[in-house]
């Protein structure tokens, strides 16, 4: 009888749980709280956090690989998350997310004002300053530093895509940092924006954007795919799928596919990608000094990206003779559409009749292209 109880006890998770796993479960509970109560990017943070919880349950084996016997036949299939996580490991999920995002995104503000592309480029500066910092910390290889830097791209799928390829062992903390800081954009950006601009600059009203014809909208995804992929071939997968989704939307002839790309397909992939990312965050991988460094470097990335965008905005304002509100520069980090909203809100505080939202959408979506390009560069250097 005592033997049976002992046997049973040793089969429960209580016998095998360690302090790291307890900590991870607490962390995942905190993330669930932030996702639900604070609304931190819940579409991804909730699946990630729950995946994190499940992967840290002792003996549950959600991430175990398949077991083969001596003849090579499968003796025991792998855990559910092992199979789902192949979609990240093989870099399949992030491009499919981009397909759906492309089908949701309106690039008209960028087409109407293509100068915004400069701001979308400038804001990628956070990526490289963070890369620099990560290298100098001495904790990371170049591959890992590149993956950490891409947090500054403020674009979840791009960060997951690059990390899966360059540093899968850091996927968990990088994804958590990326999505958390994207949710914190309204907290991180405003002080930097105010510190770098004058009241006069923040009050600048911008001219109405011209309307964009259907033909331009259809040509845009094709042209972007060609130009970007020819200059930075490793960016072709992300940019290509983003632009295919957008072509579905703008062509107007495949409404069925557009609808599925931005609903059923992206939702299914989001669930899978989320739990699979969370599943990589086991205690032994997550509870490391590196994770704290990543969290710290992530905020640096967002800060410098914001600053670079605003500074270039100021320069462009000068050159244009005062017609560009530098506040739209911060939207260049991506974090669509949160960063554009922040530009709007900060601008309106100085001048209640100031409406920067549409102008900020240009740099905002340009930032998505910008970080995909930077991811491509890093991939070609360190892939």
């Amino acid at each position, binding site marked *: 009888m005592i033997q*049976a109880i002992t046997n049973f006890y040793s089969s429960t998770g209580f016998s095998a749980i360690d302090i790291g796993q307890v900590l991870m479960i607490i962390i995942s509970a905190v993330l669930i709280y932030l996702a639900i109560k604070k609304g931190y990017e819940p579409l991804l943070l909730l699946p990630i956090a729950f995946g994190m919880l499940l992967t840290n349950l002792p003996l549950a084996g959600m991430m175990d690989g398949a077991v083969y016997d001596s003849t090579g036949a499968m003796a025991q299939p792998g855990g559910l998350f092992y199979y789902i996580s192949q979609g990240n490991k093989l870099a399949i999920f992030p491009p499919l997310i981009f397909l759906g995002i492309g089908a949701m995104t309106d690039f008209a503000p960028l087409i109407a004002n293509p100068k915004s592309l400069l701001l979308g480029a400038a804001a990628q500066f956070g990526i490289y300053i963070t890369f620099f910092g990560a290298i100098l910390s001495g904790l990371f290889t170049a591959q890992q530093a590149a993956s950490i830097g891409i947090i500054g791209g403020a674009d979840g799928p791009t960060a997951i895509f690059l990390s899966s390829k360059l540093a899968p062992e850091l996927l968990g903390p990088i994804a958590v940092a990326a999505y958390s800081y994207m949710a914190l954009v309204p907290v991180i950006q405003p002080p930097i924006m105010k510190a770098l601009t004058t009241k006069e600059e923040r009050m600048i*009203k911008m*001219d109405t*954007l011209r309307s964009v014809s259907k033909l331009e909208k259809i040509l845009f995804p094709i042209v972007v795919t060609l130009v970007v992929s020819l200059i930075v071939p490793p960016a072709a997968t992300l940019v290509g799928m983003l632009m295919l989704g957008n072509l579905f939307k703008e062509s107007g002839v495949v409404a069925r596919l557009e609808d599925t790309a931005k609903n059923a397909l992206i939702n299914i992939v989001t669930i899978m990608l989320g739990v699979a990312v969370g599943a990589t965050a086991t205690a032994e991988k997550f509870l490391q000094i590196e994770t704290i460094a990543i969290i710290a470097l992530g905020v640096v990335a967002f800060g410098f990206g914001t600053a670079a965008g605003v500074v270039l905005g100021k320069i462009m304002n000068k050159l244009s003779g005062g017609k560009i509100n530098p506040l739209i520069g911060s939207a260049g980090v991506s974090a669509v559409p949160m960063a554009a*909203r922040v530009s709007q809100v900060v601008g309106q505080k100085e001048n209640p009749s100031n*409406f920067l939202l549409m102008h900020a959408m240009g740099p905002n979506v340009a930032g998505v292209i910008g970080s995909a390009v930077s991811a491509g560069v890093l991939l070609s250097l360190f892939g």
Partner: protein
Amino acid sequence: MTLLERFADPDLIVQMEFSQKVLASTYVALLGMGITFLALILLWGVIEIQSRLVAGIDKKTEAVKVAPKAKAPEVKAAVTEDLELVAVITAALAAATGQPMNQIVVKNIRRIAGEQPAWKSAGINAQFFKRM
């Protein structure tokens, strides 16, 4: 090798005697029902405790809610949404009239027929402001 190990081996179970099988099956049944009951009783307890804790929190929250401060975030959210609406309307007016946007000032928005339907705001949020 224990009885249960032999029982669990597809090659060895055929050699077991009937009485051994009865014994092993009884053991499995007792263990299975026992653990199932144990798990669900534990769950019962945890849910009871949780319900009481939550009831406590809810009471506190209700008390807090009476204080005037509690309404602030809601109002703020409404204002933010209204400002966005102003932005969208301004942009639309500008586009429609062909005038530059900074010439147009939307001073007031009055919602016709009271409440804005929920789906509309959901729609605007989803289309304009929600992505991954």
